[in-house]
């Protein structure tokens, strides 16, 4: 079931630049969906529209069946978000920051706040002023505020931006733990391929405001059987593969159809007088997919 639906979003900035061009996709319950794209591709604009901070020219976002554009308050009750940079009131303590933010959701449960603060590992620093926090601590406080009060969906807008490698790893593990423990649905926006690859089940790739891909993250693709074929007879190989129902891209990566076994395909190639120099399993990376889509468009 789709918990979050993005429907035909189109947005043009007052400067005339087209930020989004008829983008639609869904985030299913319990999945982590990555939004990927270059800077200015429209990722944050989708986040902004989802939170009702940016108005689309066309289209809408529905959360749990409620339209953000029509009934924003009801729709946002199910969401926790880190949107753009984690900016807090420097002159307030972490605890006071959480109090101010939770009051806007009409909710305050001290025990639950303490539990979440402990979960993000901020218990010792929570009474300190936010001005004294390191970047990593700010991100953890940002995550704490997003988790209060118990959202169904988390929107994370470049959450590891500016963190050191240890911080990124810690943050990633925390998110994956949350998903496992609480079954959270997550929409993650990032331009870091590795981050999307390691955390997401599916991804949407944007380019210049257009959706150019929606599907599984390649490393999560269980159903596709990919092999790398090395041959000097490319034309002939393509003919044989076409006859067998397989496809080969320009890098020699062959997708074996489910109807046949890989060794049968090799036999067909050899039988078709194709000189097979190498045939080995291939795991497509997100980078390959992304770069392929970029060069295509």
């Amino acid at each position: 079931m789709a918990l979050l639906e993005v429907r035909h979003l189109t947005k043009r900035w007052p400067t005339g630049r087209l930020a989004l061009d008829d983008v639609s996709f869904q985030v299913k319950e319990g999945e982590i969906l990555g939004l990927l794209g270059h800077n200015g591709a429209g990722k944050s604009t989708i986040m902004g529209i989802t939170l009702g901070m940016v108005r689309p020219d066309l289209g809408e976002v529905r959360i749990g069946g409620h339209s953000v554009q029509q009934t924003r308050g009801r729709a946002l009750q199910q969401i926790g978000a880190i949107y753009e940079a984690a900016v807090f009131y420097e002159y307030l303590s972490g605890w006071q920051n959480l109090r101010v933010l939770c009051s806007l959701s009409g909710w305050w449960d001290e025990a639950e706040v303490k539990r979440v603060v402990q979960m993000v590992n901020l218990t010792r620093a929570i009474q300190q002023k936010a001005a004294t926090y390191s970047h990593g601590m700010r991100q953890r406080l940002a995550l704490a505020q997003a988790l209060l009060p118990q959202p169904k969906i988390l929107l994370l807008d470049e959450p590891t931006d500016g963190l050191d490698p240890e911080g990124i790893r810690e943050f990633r593990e925390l998110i994956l733990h949350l998903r496992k423990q609480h079954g959270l649905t997550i929409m993650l926006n990032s331009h870091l391929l590795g981050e999307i690859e390691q955390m997401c089940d599916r991804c949407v790739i944007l380019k210049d405001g257009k959706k150019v891909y929606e599907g599984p993250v390649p490393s999560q693709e269980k159903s596709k059987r990919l092999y790398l074929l090395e041959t000097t007879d490319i034309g002939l190989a393509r003919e044989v593969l076409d006859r067998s129902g397989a496809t080969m891209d320009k890098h020699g990566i062959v997708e074996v159809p489910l109807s046949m076994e890989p060794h049968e395909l090799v036999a067909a190639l050899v039988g078709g007088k194709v000189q097979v120099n190498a045939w080995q399993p291939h795991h497509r990376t997100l980078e390959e997919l992304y770069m392929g889509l970029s060069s295509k468009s």
Partner: protein
Amino acid sequence: MILFFQQWYGELLKLFARRRTYIGFGAFVALEVLLLLLIKKYGMGPIQKAVVGSGQSFDYYFSAITVASTVMGFSVFLLGALFLSLVAGDIVAKEGEDGHMRLLLARPVSRFRLLLIKYLTCTGYAFFLIQFLAWSSFALGLVLRGWGGGYFAIVPEISVVAFYDWGPGLERYALSSLYLGLSMTTISSIAFFLSCFRIKPAAATIGALTYILVDFIMRNSGFMENYQHLLVTKYMANWGRILAETIDWPLIWRGYAVVFAVNITLFTLGYAVFESRDLKS
């Protein structure tokens, strides 16, 4: 309703956690002390002349209330507008600039409610600051002149001159400070309205101060005599009519109806501007 007060508490927590909020109070006290020292050293020349010229005993009317009234008048004129527009000019624009607005609006709270809370906070601050000013001036006046005496009330711009004994004088002083507090909410409203645009907080502060100053100058320059009804400071000055021997309540209420109408209009326009904005860096 409880939720509204919880959210308002959050806004007040932010306001009173900032050092700058207290600088306003501290600066006023410093200015009051300075004015008091000047009064102690040089006396109250023009006021003394006015009292004696009216055939009254200056010593009787040189009281804590008269001193407080004079000190309050100067303080509001010199610093009041500046601090109120500083706080109100910051309240939306600064949060927008710093990115706090995006943090707040990621919550299921409407822009209207958020702005209403902020508006009530900055106008409440205006009212509270004026009351603080009135009663801290009075406390300093007591230190200088002690309890008792008369009250010589003078508001030249609306030609109010009156003499009171201690009890009625104190009542008039308290009532006029309440109405002055209400008048000053208009300065906060102007700064708040400008703060709703996508501008620097300082621009909202300067814009509000400029408007009030130009309005004030035009009202007192004479050539706008036939257009006084268009100038907001004319209606804001109605607090002084409380000090007249016979209070013209219909005139005062009419004036405050205009003040409130201006405030509500500025809030509504500010909200309309803010509502139409896309909040994205």
